[in-house]
């Protein structure tokens, strides 16, 4: 009896330690968000007079409206609205193209091996480790050559190409675990390359599609460097606009507008995570369980 009690006591202590640590980390991540949210609904007077974590006395949505609709960014006075849509118009095609091409690449590299396909895959993997900065100049030349400089489609191309290394890796590793006998059975059943892809591989690919889409959406939406290098003025993505907003506030720093804009810029990735997050975890572990 005393033994059992002692053990359960030490267990409890362990639990407290674990949960304590977790809570600490949660607070560490959530406090800045909390400060951002409350700051974004205070007016400037309250910000000047109150403390950082004081709750707003007279909550107002005005900073949000201004950030969205009429804040001054660079030479325009239209808020981050236009840039937000720029990002959406960039992210959707870039995610779709990089994911689909990655899926086909992974399918080929796992199920239609050819002489040198392993070398090809190894080289592609190297792409995951190339820092952004290295590709900036060659990419600028390429975009100029293609006539896509300073355009959203230029950014789509950059992100698609840069994302391929990752998406191919994801799909290849997932498809390696799909039995090759399935593909052979379909080949004997008379199905060709694309029919097998559509009818056999795609239907079992939902988890890895979720993982890839979340990964790519987050990466591309949050990218700053490519945005700032390969776009100007009205084609800039929201991350660049946010930076400009914070830097161009003329006389007074409007922290509430800055915070509201920052939250708006972060909303889509949060949204994607909440909607598809459970697939993300499931997809990441799916391959491991199958072995």
């Amino acid at each position, binding site marked *: 009896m005393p033994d059992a009690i002692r053990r359960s006591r030490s267990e409890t202590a362990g639990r407290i330690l674990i949960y304590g640590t977790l809570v600490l980390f949660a607070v560490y991540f959530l406090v800045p968000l909390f400060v951002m949210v409350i700051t974004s609904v205070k007016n400037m007077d309250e910000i000047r007079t109150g403390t950082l974590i004081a709750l707003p006395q007279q909550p107002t949505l005005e900073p949000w409206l201004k950030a969205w609709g009429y804040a001054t960014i660079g030479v325009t006075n239209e808020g981050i609205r236009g840039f937000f849509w720029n990002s959406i118009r960039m992210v959707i095609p870039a995610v779709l193209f990089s994911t689909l091409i990655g899926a086909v690449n992974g399918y080929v590299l796992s199920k239609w091996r050819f002489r040198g396909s392993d070398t090809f895959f190894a080289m592609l993997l190297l792409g995951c480790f190339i820092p952004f900065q290295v590709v900036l100049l060659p990419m600028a030349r390429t975009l100029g050559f293609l006539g896509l400089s300073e355009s959203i489609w230029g950014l789509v191309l950059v992100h698609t190409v840069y994302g391929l290394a990752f998406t191919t890796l994801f799909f290849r590793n997932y498809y390696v675990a799909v039995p090759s006998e399935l593909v052979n059975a379909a080949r004997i059943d*008379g199905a060709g390359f694309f029919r097998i892809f559509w009818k056999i591989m795609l239907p079992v690919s939902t988890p890895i599609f979720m993982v890839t889409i979340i990964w790519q959406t987050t990466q591309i939406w949050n990218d700053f460097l490519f945005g700032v290098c390969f776009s100007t003025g009205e084609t800039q993505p929201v991350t660049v606009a946010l930076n400009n907003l914070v830097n161009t506030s003329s006389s007074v720093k409007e922290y509430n507008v800055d915070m509201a804009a920052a939250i708006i810029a972060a909303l889509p990735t949060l949204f994607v995570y909440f909607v598809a997050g459970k697939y993300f975890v499931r997809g990441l572990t799916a391959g491991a369980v199958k072995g």
Partner: protein
Amino acid sequence: MASLVIDNVTKAFGRVQVLKGIDIAVDAGEFLVLVGPSGCGKSTLLNLIAGLESITTGEIRMGDRVVNNIPPKDRDIAMVFQSYALYPNMNVRRNLSFGLETRKVPRAEIENRIQRVAEILQIENLLERKPSQLSGGQRQRVAMGRAIAREPLIFLFDEPLSNLDAKLRVEMRTEIKKLHQRLGTTIVYVTHDQIEAMTLADRIAIMKDGIVQQFDTPDGVYANPANLFVAGFIGSPAMNFIPVSLSRENGHLVAPLVTADGRRFTVPVPADTGALAPEREIIMGIRPENITDFQEGMQSWAHIAALECGVNVVEPTGPDTLVYTEVNQTQIVCRLCPDAAPKAGDTIRLAFDTTKPLFFEPGTGNRIEG
């Protein structure tokens, strides 16, 4: 239905030679079994026949068509895989119809065939289920159904029963045999189970290390194994191999056998040839059922030699009792009638059928024919 000829086929993966000159020919409608230990190249050969892998050298013919460069879908074959390879996202009906749809078989005909196949295999009530909702045996049936629905020239089976439990395996084995009798289609069947091979085959190709050791009927490989490997592979319990040193006694060439307690007797050897000569060390093979209990009256049978020896181990199997003893310092197993079964430690009189021993070269393992 089509005949199948495999003509001096080799297959190399990079520098690894997996198949080293395979020659096999079967008539239309025959049941060919490829059997051999793991890694001997059975699946590789089957994949070559299917067209899933390319042939390095040699030729494969189906009917009078050389198929070397014909893709799998145009070879008119159907295959059942070891893992069944059912399409996980499709229900049973779609699994059966997938290959037919790809081939543009008319809808009504597809329905007909599914109905017929479902009846043959008794899977009518499973048609709307997904593969994940089926038991192992049901999956196996569906996999066979998918092949049958295609009505191919040749069926290819790659260890279709190896994932089933022992009882179901025996049942399905019989069903496959019935199916073959009913459909009459040429079948190539891969297994590493020699009993499956013996029970199913019209002809067996026994493979080892990428070489066909023997290609013959089941009776042929059993009664006339070409070498030590085949002799030991086919039959359960396996053939006894006893090292003997030939000698000449009373003008006849004999193989002397000495039991553990020193009793000696001799087995006549058919003829003097170069290989079968006095002083030669060779291996004598004798199947367990050819050393059996000594019965009343056998004294007068010329071909029976009596053999007194001590019993080491007794294993009843039901219909027979296996008795282990020792001759020439080698453990051998004999198959006795359960009524005559001794106990371990007894000394027993055994009847050794002297017409049955086979002789093999110790080095190469090749059969020495008298």
